[in-house]
């Protein structure tokens, strides 16, 4: 039971960390390889704000999200939009190159050394019966779920959300009803970057990080996106929780040596057994793209 609890808590954070990747893939059909660098940029921004002001790291999320939203907007305008003419491969290669540049910039600003964001609750826990609840994990997961709920509301209750969903389901059809798909793409990319930055703020509380720590999150993010159903936010949440539990159970009852291989096993198994993921739907491409 304790292992499942740890898995669910870490899965909540995984869900937020992968939501930006899911959103961007869902709308634009591209794998954003700057994802890890944006995540760590969010963590470093949180570190700097906390060190300068002494505020709680979770309180930095609006500022970090706003900065990352702007950065995402710039990345789309200056790189992704121009690379799109070369096709999906060019976009992916461009985001890979940009990820390296971002990592270099992070090194120039913050250096190579590991950084940590210290809080009064980062090392504490509370107990209910025999179950241990690490405070930072509980707050981090709760914060992640609130942000995901806000994103869900945005996508389902606002015009922007309807436009995003329309552009996701059928870009040509969306254009026909007056939706500027290109603008939606920019908004989705920037929003995805903001969510990723917010996840970085939470991760900064949970463990030490270095400029290259983001690399570890790309494979995990892809696994969650594939498992959940590519582009499905609900699926990403379920997929993240499932992966968190699978990883934790593997580390507890199997071996930690296998735990980090689980995301990749999940990618392979999902593509073989249910390519559309848990919440994905098979759609006739001839109809969609007509």
């Amino acid at each position: 039971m304790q292992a499942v609890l740890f898995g669910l808590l870490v899965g909540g954070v995984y869900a937020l960390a992968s939501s930006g990747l899911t959103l961007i893939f869902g709308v634009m059909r591209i794998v954003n390889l700057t994802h890890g660098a944006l995540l760590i940029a969010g963590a470093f921004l949180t570190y700097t704000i906390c060190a300068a002001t002494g505020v709680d790291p979770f309180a930095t999320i609006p500022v970090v999200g706003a900065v990352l939203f702007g950065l995402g907007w710039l990345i789309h305008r200056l790189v992704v939009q121009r690379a799109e003419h070369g096709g999906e491969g060019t976009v992916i290669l461009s985001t890979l190159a940009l990820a390296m540049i971002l990592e270099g910039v992070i090194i120039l600003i913050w250096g190579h050394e590991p950084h940590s964001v210290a809080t009064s609750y980062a090392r504490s826990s509370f107990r209910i019966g025999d179950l241990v609840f690490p405070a930072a994990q509980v707050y981090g997961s709760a914060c992640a779920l609130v942000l995901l709920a806000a994103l869900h509301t945005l996508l389902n209750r606002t015009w922007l959300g309807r436009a995003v969903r329309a552009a996701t389901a059928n870009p040509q059809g969306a254009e026909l009803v007056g939706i500027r798909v290109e603008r939606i793409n920019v908004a989705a990319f920037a929003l995805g970057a903001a969510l990723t930055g917010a996840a970085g703020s939470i991760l900064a509380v949970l463990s030490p990080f270095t400029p290259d720590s983001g690399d570890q999150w790309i494979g995990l993010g892809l696994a969650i996106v594939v498992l959940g159903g590519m582009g499905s936010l609900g699926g990403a949440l379920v997929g993240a929780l499932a992966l968190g539990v699978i990883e934790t159970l593997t580390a507890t009852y199997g071996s930690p040596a296998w735990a980090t291989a689980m995301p990749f096993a999940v990618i392979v198994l999902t593509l073989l057994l249910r390519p559309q993921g848990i919440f994905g739907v098979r759609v006739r491409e001839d109809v969609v793209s007509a």
Partner: protein
Amino acid sequence: MTIDRRSFLIGASLLPLVTACGASGSSSSSTAAPLKIGASLPLTGPAADVADPGYKGYQVWQSQINARGGLLGRKVEFVILDDGFDQNTVVSNYNRLISQDRVDLLIGTFSSFLNLPASTVADRNRMLYIEPSGGAADIFSRGHTRLFFSQPGTTDTAHRPFAGYVEGLKERPATAAYLHQDDPSTDVPVQNLRKTFEGLGIKTVYGQKYPPDTKNFDAIANAIRQADPALVVHGALELDGAAVVQAMQRVGFTPPILYQTRAPSSVNTYPKAIGATNTEAIFTAGSWHPAAKYPGNAEFVADYRKQFSQEPSEDAANSYTAVQVLQAGVQAVGKLDQDAIAAWLHANQVDTIVGPLKWDKRGVPDGSLLLMQWQGGKLEVVAPASAATVPSAIAAKPNWAT
């Protein structure tokens, strides 16, 4: 929604790509030109936090030697390339340093992972290779005669200081847990400690390894908590050392005795990550201490602080030691004859900031690492007695402070 596997396949296939960038020098050496020393360092990638202070150690020595007129009367210039912690890149970098940049001397890089292939390039080109880190046994078993390790102990002997301490306890711990990152520099010391302690009758209640990309240690810490060992031995490299301690703090388990490799030596970052008071009584093994009375050590510490406005780490000291050894050999021989320098180093002892070093025919030093422990917010030497900076070790670790 359609599933676009092509995008994912392209994305996934690009994940392992690692690149490197570098600087170069171009002119060939002459007697009037600066004396060029080449190295490839993992200035980006997962070992960048180790290589950065290592590079600074080289830079401190460079400032000192040039202020004294240089080496063999020539100003010293470093040609440093970045390999991104990639074995293929480190090989091409050392080839480039030799054939294109035409450096006069080579110096080693960081980690056994990189030094293993890099030292092979040096050996094929009949170049001297002094490595500041990378003490895995495999490196010294290939018959290289120009290879020297500039720390007092290797991975094979790294367990001895702590093993000796536990062996000497009147009341030894009854149970122990062993955890280590899957890396040759952590695997061997932890396995050696386990073998030694099991021989002493200390029962193993937990034993696992984890891959370098492990992000979440809560489940591992909880499993250790449930095993309730009296001693935890953790083979850590850097980030994972602090992350495991943080996870143990979160699950509310304080091991009565905690020994970690490497990570506690990061005096600038480790206390910040786990809480300064929580470092108390954590053991590690190390090669160097800032207060050691060895010749040149005080000067190194002062110059490092002055040049970089921070405390020197063990990695910085190790790279400084490597160039001290190189300097001693070159000055003794009086010319850049790689074989003659290697022969001199095999035959003589060199005084360094980690103490006097002397090597066997494999390039393995005949010394041992120091047993160190955090006490009162400082990393102190507790054994051997001749190098101790505090009277005794703290036997039991206080509970974590939140």
